[in-house]
């Protein structure tokens, strides 16, 4: 059933009241009508009784009157001596008060019924028909006048007839005068009288018509009741109107207002405003309670909704934010990328990929807690370095990204430099780190809107890997020159790396000679890995980044060990040839690799074995690394610090770890032939210092005789480079 509007309900209520009022009015009207009818009936009966009484009184009066007239001495006088009858009839009888006003005529008749004298004015019958022995009544023929005939006797006993008398009575006049009439309206009295004489007045009347007087009291009462009812009705209507107004103002309007407000709130559910109280002096408590309750309910609902929205937003944010750093996550990255693509901003968009250098090593060396702090600090600094509105996304463990719509190379470069500056300015030592933390930034610029994320991401990835390469700037824009790296990081190259780790045949070892100075004879060889990739060989620079990126350092180190062991087993390396093996910073703290090295040494007890740890690799677990190196030395390994001058803390390594050999990086060796004497001096001084401290020093990258002469001059113990073999 359709709900009824309160306004309709109130209208129905008003209509019902009106109907009830009209019903009551009609009932009252009918009751009043019945009462009026009853009173009318009673009044009609009373009028009838009045008329009957009037007639009786009239007859009695007339009888008394004519009897008195008949007994009057002067009446008898006229019958005896009628000489002055006319005077008696016209004057005396009236002067004596014998005839009242309603008697319009009088006449005396002799015993035979002959009138004594014919009247001059008022007609009286000349002869009496049927001499009345008693009083008789008859009509005068005009339905107004009544004759009353009476005998006149000489003696009081009525035994001596003397004559007759008659009076002519104005019936209506006497009827009016005979008594007061309260109910009968005798003003319009109509009578019909019989011409025949009758012994009674009633018998002489053939018909008498009269009306009932309008009951003035009843009319007044009726009028009063009508007026009272009309006033009551008016008052009720007024009260009803006031009640309707009051009802509308106090209930309907507030209800409608509440309903409208509720509808409005329903259509605007997020509106947390309360229901505004009505500016109405007549406020109904219950409605106000409803309004207040609903308002409070709505406010709570709005708060709940806010909470839900907040929670939803939180969920949304959490779903799109990285819990550790607060930066946006990959999901947000993908969505924003699609949004940019939909908005057409990909035409000139720069994608910057950030990757923390050596983060795995940091993580493994200082623990995940420190690693998390480093990541948070990187995220914070990158965020501060970005422009307002730019978003920082954490795509993976230590990999961040940002998108710079409507950006070009200078602006992207400025952002990248600012990011690097923030990172370099941050004091990571507060987290217990002894080494500097850096990030590599790969930047790819979209050239047209058709660029897809994958493509741009790949380019930025390549650029980022390029930035990681030693000697490169820490931010690199993607260009065609580094397309080769793309191949390395392509799935095929990665598969090749994995294949090399799992299949020893895929890994081909090259042994570069390291000559002793100044004799220039091969002292030992350094095992350099190559990966077979079809007909090609992947050089270390082409796959080590993949190894490092995919955290395959230990596995790759083990694969190299297996390959070297195989070469030694098959005799590819002479039994007396010393062998230097590169071990990744991760591997040096890995127990399995240490175990493998110990096993290898156990089988090659006679061979000179050297472990090279790269200086440019961050070794965070110095103590453990030192311990492992000490264990390796105990079994006969020598420890060489590789790439001195290109990494972080070579001198720290020297002071903390057991090192036998120090290999100067090619960049330092090439400084020896620099035109700048200061550079040459520094390298020489370092070499002297290192050498002076008991370390055997090795020059890397000796490619020319000049290089060789220089290193020999500086007292290097060993030299390595293309001059001696690739």
């Amino acid at each position: 059933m359709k709900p009824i509007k309160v306004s309709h309900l109130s209208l129905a209520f008003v209509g019902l009241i009106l109907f009830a009022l009209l019903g009551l009015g009609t009932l009252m009207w009918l009751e009043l009508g019945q009462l009026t009818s009853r009173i009318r009936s009673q009044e009609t009966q009373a009028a009838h009784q009045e008329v009957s009484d009037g007639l009786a009184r009239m007859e009695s009066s007339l009888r008394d009157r004519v009897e008195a007239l008949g007994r009057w001495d002067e009446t008898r006088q006229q019958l005896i001596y009628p000489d002055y009858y006319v005077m008696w009839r016209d004057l005396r009888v009236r002067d004596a008060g014998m005839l009242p006003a309603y008697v319009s005529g009088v006449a005396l008749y002799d015993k035979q019924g002959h009138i004594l004298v014919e009247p001059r004015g008022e007609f009286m019958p000349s002869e009496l028909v049927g001499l009345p022995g008693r009083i008789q009544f008859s009509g005068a023929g005009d339905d107004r006048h009544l004759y009353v005939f009476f005998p006149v006797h000489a003696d009081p006993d009525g035994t001596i007839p003397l004559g007759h008398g008659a009076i002519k009575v104005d019936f209506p006049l006497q009827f009016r005068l005979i008594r007061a009439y309260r109910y009968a309206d005798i003003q319009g009295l109509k009578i019909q009288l019989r011409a025949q004489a009758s012994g009674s007045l009633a018998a002489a009347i053939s018909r008498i018509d009269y009306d009932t007087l309008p009951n003035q009291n009843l009319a007044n009462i009726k009028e009063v009741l009508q007026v009272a009812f009309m006033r009551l009705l008016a008052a009720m209507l007024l009260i009803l109107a006031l009640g309707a107004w009051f009802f509308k103002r106090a209930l309907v309007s507030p209800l409608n207002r509440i309903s409208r407000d509720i509808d409005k709130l329903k259509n605007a559910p997020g509106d947390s405003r309360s229901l505004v109280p009505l500016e109405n002096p007549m406020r109904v408590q219950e409605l106000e309670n409803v309004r207040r309750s609903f308002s409070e309910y709505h406010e709570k609902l709005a708060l709940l909704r806010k909470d839900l929205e907040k929670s939803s937003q939180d969920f949304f944010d959490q779903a799109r934010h990285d819990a550790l750093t607060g930066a946006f996550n990959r999901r947000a990255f993908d969505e924003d990328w699609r949004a940019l693509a939909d908005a057409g901003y990909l035409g000139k968009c720069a994608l910057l990929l950030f990757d923390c250098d050596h983060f795995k090593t940091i993580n493994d060396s200082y623990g995940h807690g420190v690693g998390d702090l480093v990541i948070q600090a990187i995220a914070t600094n990158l965020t501060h370095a970005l422009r307002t509105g730019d978003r920082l996304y954490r795509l993976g463990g230590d990999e961040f990204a940002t998108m710079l719509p409507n950006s070009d190379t200078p602006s992207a470069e400025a952002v990248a430099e600012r990011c690097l500056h923030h990172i370099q300015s941050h004091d990571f030592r507060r987290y217990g780190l002894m080494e500097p933390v850096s990030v590599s930034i790969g930047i790819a610029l979209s050239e047209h809107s058709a660029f897809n994320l994958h493509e741009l991401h790949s380019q930025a990835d390549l650029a980022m890997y390029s930035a990681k390469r030693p000697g490169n700037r820490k931010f690199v824009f993607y260009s065609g020159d580094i397309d080769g790296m793309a191949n390395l990081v392509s799935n095929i190259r990665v598969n090749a790396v994995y294949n090399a780790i799992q299949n020893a045949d895929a890994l081909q070892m090259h042994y570069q000679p390291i000559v002793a100075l100044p004799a220039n004879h091969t002292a030992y060889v350094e095992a350099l890995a190559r990966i077979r990739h079809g007909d090609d060989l992947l050089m270390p620079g082409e796959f080590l980044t993949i190894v490092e990126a995919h955290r395959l350092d230990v596995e790759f180190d083990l694969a190299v060990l297996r390959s070297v062991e195989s070469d030694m087993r098959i005799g590819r390396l002479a039994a007396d040839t010393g062998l230097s093996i590169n071990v990744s910073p991760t591997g040096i703290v890995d127990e399995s690799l240490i175990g493998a090295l110990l096993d290898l040494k156990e089988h090659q007890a006679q061979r000179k074995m050297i472990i090279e740890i790269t200086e440019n690799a961050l070794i965070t677990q110095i103590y453990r690394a030192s311990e492992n190196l000490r264990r390796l030395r105990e079994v006969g390994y020598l420890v060489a610090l590789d790439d001195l001058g290109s990494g972080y803390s070579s001198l720290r390594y020297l002071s903390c770890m057991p090192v036998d050999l120090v290999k100067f990086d090619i960049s330092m060796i090439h400084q020896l032939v620099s035109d700048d004497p200061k550079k040459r001096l520094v390298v020489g001084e370092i070499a002297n210092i290192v050498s002076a401290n008991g370390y055997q020093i090795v020059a890397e990258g000796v490619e020319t005789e000049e290089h060789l002469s220089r290193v020999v001059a500086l007292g290097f113990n060993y030299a390595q480079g293309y001059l001696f073999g690739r």
Partner: protein
Amino acid sequence: MITIRLGVGMLLLAFMQLAGWPLARAERVSMTMRPDLTAIAEYRAGRADKPVVLILHGFLQTADSPVIFSLTEGLAGEGYGVLAPTMTLGITHRRTSLACEAIHTHTLNDDIVEIDRWVQWLKRRHNRPIVLIGHSLGSLTLLAYLDRYAATPVRKTIGVSIMEGRLTGNPQDQEKSILDLKQRIRNGQREPVRQPYSFCSTFNAVPESLLSYLEWSPARVMAMSRKHKSRLIYIMGGRDDRLGPGWVEGLVKTGVTVRIIPGANHFMDGEYEFDLLESVIGELKGLRVE
């Protein structure tokens, strides 16, 4: 002593009247004066040893007038035969006083005739002395009767409060009126004349009627009284204000025995009716029944 005895008797009479106990059986008698005119009278036969009295009422009165009723009852109580006729005044069976304004056609002579008829009626019934008692103008009527019927058997006539019939005004006006009435009669003008007469402020009478009463002037009364003084006794009220000046003195001068009841008015009403009765009885005691 007599006075005391009569006084006690009157008191007894009054008591019996008040108690409704008729002192003597009253009889209503009638007499046809003409074929169409019947007169009625109250009659009590009385004791045979006492005179019979005819009591005539005053002008236009009836036998039921108080003074007549009182005398009738008083005398009847004393055993006197009493006849109290009502003059017909031309109205058969007249029972009520006739209004002054009524059309008066009766004459004094008509009254005298009717008195004579009643006297004859008494004479036929009794052999006792007949005494006439009249009141006011009734006394005048009886005087006229005595003058008219000299041979009447009436032994004594008592005129109570006798007065002449006169018009109000001076005697000259009365003479003028008499002349006018006579002229009317001669001219055959029979229309009633309205004149103040006696105690009537408007006496509506035909000329013959009025003239018959007016002819009895004071002088005539005095003359007739003197003429019949042997059979006349007048009883007058000491304070009768209806009489003309010197009227009683004139009566006395006529030689008629005039008795004055001191303090009584014209109608002898109240306590004086007993004095009147006592006086009347005193006059009647001297009459002896043969």
